[in-house]
């Protein structure tokens, strides 16, 4: 997914994007073993590791176990992921022994489209056989969604992304509601939290529907309703999300500055080949 320009929703001293990343990072615990998707999940997971969760284990599907990159990888298999990993395994081993083996506590995913039950589409907009927009596809997500202990989702909130009905179920969330995962033989918890640039949603223990449990500072309930394609529900005791701390912001900005410097397009005129 293309990201909107930074600062679009800038607040007093941090951007909405920063609020989202910080909030997403906080969801991870020090002893989690996290299967990390590229992009926003990777940013959040690395921020967690650099702040409150130094013991967090990061796993990228390229085979790197316990990796500690100093900058955010552009791809799922950047060289630094391997260089800083505890160990690197083959891709079949990654998916067989590590993901399917049930050793991952959290799968951290993004999405193009999501519905109220955390089902994810990253395959097509339109019909599968006659797509309006052909997206990259599922990659690791279909089995991440069912094999990890639970799923966290981070994505920017908009009516286009948060839809009443996704065009294609790339990765199972809670299906059509409570009991669907069990009926499909899935024993993991599925999507439990969604962190956006507006709020935190939590999967309702009864209905499995995402409900807003925390609203970011300066955001109104109306903004959330306007940017959600389904009739969004709010918890009775909605909280205000704590603002990013100075330390969180500093760590995130350092990480992004290092990343930008490392990935800058060389200024050699023609990028050859």
């Amino acid at each position, binding site marked *: 997914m293309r990201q909107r320009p930074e600062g679009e929703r800038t607040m007093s001293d941090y951007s909405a994007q920063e609020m989202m990343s910080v909030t997403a990072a906080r969801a991870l615990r020090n002893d989690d073993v996290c299967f990390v998707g590229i992009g926003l999940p990777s940013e959040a997971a690395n921020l967690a590791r650099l702040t409150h969760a130094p013991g967090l284990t990061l796993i990228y599907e390229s085979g790197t176990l316990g990796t500690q990159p100093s900058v955010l990888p552009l791809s799922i*298999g950047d*060289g630094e992921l391997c260089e800083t990993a505890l160990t690197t395994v083959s891709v079949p081993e990654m998916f067989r022994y590590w993901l399917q083996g049930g050793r991952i506590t959290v799968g951290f995913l993004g999405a193009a489209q999501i519905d109220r039950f955390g089902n994810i589409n990253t395959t097509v907009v339109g019909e599968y056989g006659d797509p*309006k927009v052909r997206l990259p596809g*599922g990659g690791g997500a279909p089995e991440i969604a069912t094999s990890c202990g639970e799923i966290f989702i981070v994505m920017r909130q908009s009516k286009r992304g948060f839809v009443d009905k996704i065009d294609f179920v790339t990765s199972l969330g809670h299906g059509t509601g409570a009991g669907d995962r069990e009926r499909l033989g899935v024993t993991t918890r599925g999507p439990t939290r969604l962190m956006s640039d507006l709020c935190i949603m939590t999967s309702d223990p009864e209905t499995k529907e995402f409900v807003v449990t925390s609203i970011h500072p300066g955001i109104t309930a109306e903004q959330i309703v306007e940017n959600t394609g389904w009739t969004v529900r709010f918890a009775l005791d909605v909280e205000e999300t704590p603002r990013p701390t100075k330390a969180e912001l500093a760590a995130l900005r350092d990480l992004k500055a290092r990343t930008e410097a490392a990935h800058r397009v060389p200024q050699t005129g023609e990028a050859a080949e």
Partner: protein
Amino acid sequence: MSEFVLLSEAVEAVMSDGDAVAMEGFTHLIPHAAGHEVIRQGRRDLTLIRMTPDIIYDQLIGMGCAARLVFSWGGNPGVGSLHRFRDAVERDWPIPLEIEEHSHAAMANAYDAGAAGLPFAVFRGYRGAELAQVNPAIKSITCPYTEEKLACVPSIRADVAVVHAQKANARGDVLFEGIVGVQKEAVLGAKRSIVTVEEIVDEFEGTGPNAVILPHWTVGYIAVVPGGAHPSYAHGYYTRDNGFYKMWDEVSRDRDSFRAWIKQHVLEGGPQDFARHAAAA
């Protein structure tokens, strides 16, 4: 039994129109130079197999080499869409592209099963995933002990595997290290293979803790192409040319700029150009 040849000779020797071809490399060690050679030799009607058909397959698809794509994630990593892939799927340009789409878990298991000489792979996957409804290759099988229903897919046993590695020794043994992906499985599962390497060495020394070695009796043709993975990278030799991936987004958006780029850099280029590109990255 491996044989050292020129890249052009290798492609001529092992790849025919209509072949099922797996050019692998999971972000790392992607055999770009070999992909260009396939374009230059004008292969047609290929079934292209690859977990992550990124730029290398975008180029082959845009040049009409492929009739069919077996894949699990088709994007420009960290950048966005593959425009030539999308143009083929969404608008049949330059020719229609049939797709067989999987998840990474399915393809990783299918490569594993192919290397193991099995006809199919069993895994716990596709539960609640709609791909299982649109891809008839995805079936299910019941565990004879627990009655658990599991997914299965046909194993991947390509006609030709094409990979890039760091080193070969004089006997033709091949060494990969760093992120090793599914290349070992792709080669072991394939009928024939081409390996491009950075260099030939006397001995494999000082190899890292996750080195993969393919003995010479499992490898077909080896061609020395320094820089042959560019704009991908070769751990220990050169880094990923992230700028190129971003640049490709612009070049490939437009059919004409794409063709102009291919003409200049592929049709009028050759494997000898790659060392320079990799060095500049």
